[in-house]
C-alpha cells in the first residue's frame, strides 16, 4: 500500500478522505474505493449541497459525487458540508467573506429541478479571492443517471480551474479474477473511473487479457483464451457483438488502436517470433512493423499517431523503444535498469510511462521524452499495467495489496492516490477510456 509521511495539516485531510471509503452499491459493482493520499498542493474548494426543486431521486447526491470526484483527483481538498457557514444555491446568497474565512479558494453552488424524466442542474462556480463567477451552466440527465450528471459537472469545474479537461466522465475497463465452483472466473468489466456502475462484459474460465479502448470509446479490443489459445477480439459495447480479428498460430496479443480507429497494432508470432504488426480492420491486411529475432511486443501509438512505442529485448533484456514512423530504425528510450516494459505515452507527447524494475521490485516509472530524465513514481513492489488518463493528469495501474491485485490511481507526477480493490479476488489490467463527447 502506498504510504507517505503526513504533515499535520494533511492528517485532517486524511480523516476526511477516509470517510470516503465506501462499498460500491448495485448488483454488479465490485470495486471499492480507498483514498490513500492527498496531494500536497490541493486546492481548497467548497461544493455546497445543491438545492432541490421538485421530485429529485433519493440516493446519490450530485454535490457528493462532485466532491468525491474532485477529492479523488488529488488536486482539490473539498470542504466538508458540516463546516460550511451557509448553504447558498445561487449567486446572491454567496457571501465571499465567509468563504474566505474558511480558507476556501473556490465555491460551487447549484440547484436541481425536475423536467419530465430528466433532472436539470443549474450550477455556478466562484473564485473566492476575485469574487468572480468563473463558470455558470445548466446540464440535464435522466433521473436514473445522477452519477453521469455529477461527473459531468466535475469535468466542467476541473476544466474551469485547471484549464485541462476533466476525465471524471470517462470509463475504466479491467479484468477481475476470482474462483467460482472451483474454477477460475475471468471477467472483463467496464465501470466509472471511481469504480462505480461496473458492468460485466465477458466472462470466461480461461484468461482474458489486454483490454484496449477504441478512440471513440465504443469498442474494446482484448485477448481471450476462450478457445484454449490466445486470439484478439473486438467487442462492441452497446450491442455486445464480438468479432475475432486475429487467430493466427502462436501469439495473438497486445492490441492497440490507431487514432482513427481503423487499424490495430498487435503482436503476432505466426512466422515464428514475436513481432509487431498493424492490421487494417476493414481488409484484415497485415503490415509487419518489426523484424528482429528478439521479442517485440506491447506496441502503442505515440501522441502524434504516426510513431509507435514498444517493448523489445534486442539489447538483452526488455527495454522501451520508439519508432518514429513505420519501418524507421527504432530508438531506445530507457536505460535506467535492466527491465523496462509496456510503454504508455500521455496525450501531450512529453512523457512515456512503463513498468520499471529496480532491485527486485517492479514499479511504474516515466521518462521525460524531451530530456530523457526518468522518474520512478510508485513505491509498491509489484506494479503492472500503467494506463494514463486521457487528460494526462492521472495514472492507473495494478499492484498487490495483501496478496490480491488491486487498481491504484495516482496523479501523473506520482502524488495523490486512491485504490480500487475488488470486493473479492483480483482486479488487474486497467485501461483508461477516452474522453467522449
Amino acid at each position, binding site marked *: 500500500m502506498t504510504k507517505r509521511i503526513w504533515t499535520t495539516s494533511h492528517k485532517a485531510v486524511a480523516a476526511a478522505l477516509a470517510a470516503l471509503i465506501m462499498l460500491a452499491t448495485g448488483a454488479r459493482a465490485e470495486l471499492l474505493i480507498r483514498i490513500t493520499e492527498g496531494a500536497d498542493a490541493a486546492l481548497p474548494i467548497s461544493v455546497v449541497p445543491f438545492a432541490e426543486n421538485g421530485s429529485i431521486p433519493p440516493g446519490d447526491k450530485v454535490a457528493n459525487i462532485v466532491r468525491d470526484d474532485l477529492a479523488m483527483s488529488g488536486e482539490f481538498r473539498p470542504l466538508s458540508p458540516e463546516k460550511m457557514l451557509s448553504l447558498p444555491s445561487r449567486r446572491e446568497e454567496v457571501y465571499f467573506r465567509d468563504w474566505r474565512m474558511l480558507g476556501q479558494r473556490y465555491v460551487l453552488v447549484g440547484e436541481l429541478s425536475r423536467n419530465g424524466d430528466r433532472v436539470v442542474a443549474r450550477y455556478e462556480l466562484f473564485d473566492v479571492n476575485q469574487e468572480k463567477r468563473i463558470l455558470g451552466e445548466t446540464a440535464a440527465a435522466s433521473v436514473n443517471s445522477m452519477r453521469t450528471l455529477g461527473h459531468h459537472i466535475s469535468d466542467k469545474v476541473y476544466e474551469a480551474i485547471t484549464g485541462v479537461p476533466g476525465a471524471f466522465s470517462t470509463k475504466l475497463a479491467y479484468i477481475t479474477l476470482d474462483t467460482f465452483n472451483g474454477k477460475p472466473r475471468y471477467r472483463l468489466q467496464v465501470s466509472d473511473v471511481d469504480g462505480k456502475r461496473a458492468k460485466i462484459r465477458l466472462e470466461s474460465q480461461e*484468461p482474458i*487479457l*489486454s483490454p484496449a479502448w477504441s478512440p471513440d470509446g465504443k469498442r474494446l479490443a482484448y485477448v481471450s*483464451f476462450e478457445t*484454449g*489459445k*490466445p486470439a484478439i477480439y473486438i467487442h462492441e459495447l452497446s450491442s455486445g457483438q464480438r468479432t475475432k480479428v486475429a487467430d493466427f498460430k*502462436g*501469439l495473438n*496479443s*497486445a492490441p492497440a488502436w490507431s487514432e482513427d480507429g481503423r487499424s490495430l497494432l498487435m*503482436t503476432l*508470432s505466426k512466422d*515464428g517470433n*514475436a513481432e509487431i504488426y498493424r492490421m487494417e480492420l476493414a481488409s484484415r491486411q497485415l503490415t509487419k512493423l518489426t523484424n528482429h529475432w528478439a*521479442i517485440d*511486443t*506491447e506496441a502503442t501509438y505515440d501522441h502524434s499517431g504516426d510513431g509507435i512505442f514498444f*517493448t523489445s*529485448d534486442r539489447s538483452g*533484456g*526488455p527495454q522501451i523503444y520508439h519508432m518514429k514512423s513505420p519501418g524507421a530504425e527504432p530508438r531506445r528510450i530507457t536505460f535506467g535498469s535492466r*527491465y523496462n*516494459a*509496456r510503454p504508455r505515452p500521455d496525450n501531450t507527447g512529453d512523457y512515456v510511462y512503463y*513498468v520499471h*524494475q529496480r532491485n527486485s521490485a*517492479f514499479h511504474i516509472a516515466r521518462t521525460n521524452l524531451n530530456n530523457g530524465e526518468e522518474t520512478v513514481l510508485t513505491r509498491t513492489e*509489484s506494479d*503492472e*499495467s500503467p494506463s494514463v488518463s486521457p487528460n494526462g493528469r492521472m495514472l492507473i495501474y495494478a499492484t*498487490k495489496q495483501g*496478496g490480491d491485485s488491486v487498481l491504484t490511481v495516482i496523479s501523473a507526477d506520482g502524488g495523490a492516490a486512491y485504490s480500487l480493490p475488488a470486493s473479492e479476488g483480483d482486479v488487474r*489490467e486497467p485501461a483508461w477510456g477516452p474522453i467522449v463527447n
Partner: protein
Amino acid sequence: MKLSMHSKVLAMLLSAGLFAGCSSTGETVGDGSYDSDVAPVDDGSTVYGGDDEGGVSSSALTEEERMAAEERAKMEALRDITTFYFDFDTAEIKPEARDVLVAHAQYLANNPGQNVRLEGHADERGTKEYNLALGERRANAVQRFLIVNGASRGQIETVSYGEEKPAVMGSSESAWAQNRRVELVFD
C-alpha cells in the same frame, strides 16, 4: 513438491526393470508405447524386485540386450518428467533437462502418431504481454530441442499462457521458480 530427479529415475529404473522382465513372456507390452523395432527380451531373464541393488539380473541375456533393455527403461523413466524449469527472463534449457528432453524426443521419433503440446509459462514478475512472449520463447526452445533430437515439427504444438496459469500460487522465490516452466502435455 519436486522429486529429486535422481531418486525418481532410480525408482523408475527398478520398476521398469520389472516391466521389462514381464515382457519376456512374449506378450504384447503394455500400452503399445514400444515400437516394433524394440528388441524383445529373451526368456530366462530373472527379475529380482524390491530394494535389491541392481534389480535386474540377466543371466540369459546377452550383454547387448541387457544394455538395450536398461537403456529403454531408463528412457522411459526419464519421460516421467514432463515439466522443465527456466531462470528469470531466459529461455535457456538447463543442462539437467537435456537427457530427459532427449528421451521425449526419441519417444516422439519412435511414435510418429504421438503428438505433444508444449505449454510455456512465466512467473508473475514483469508485464503480462512480455511474459506471454517469454512463455512462447520457452516453448519454442523446447520445441527446437525436440526437433533437433528426432521429433518432427508436425507432432508438436506450442501455446504460451504467460503468467496466467501459475503452477504454484504466491510471490516467493520458490513459487516463481516453479512457475517459470514448459509443460509437455501428451494427448
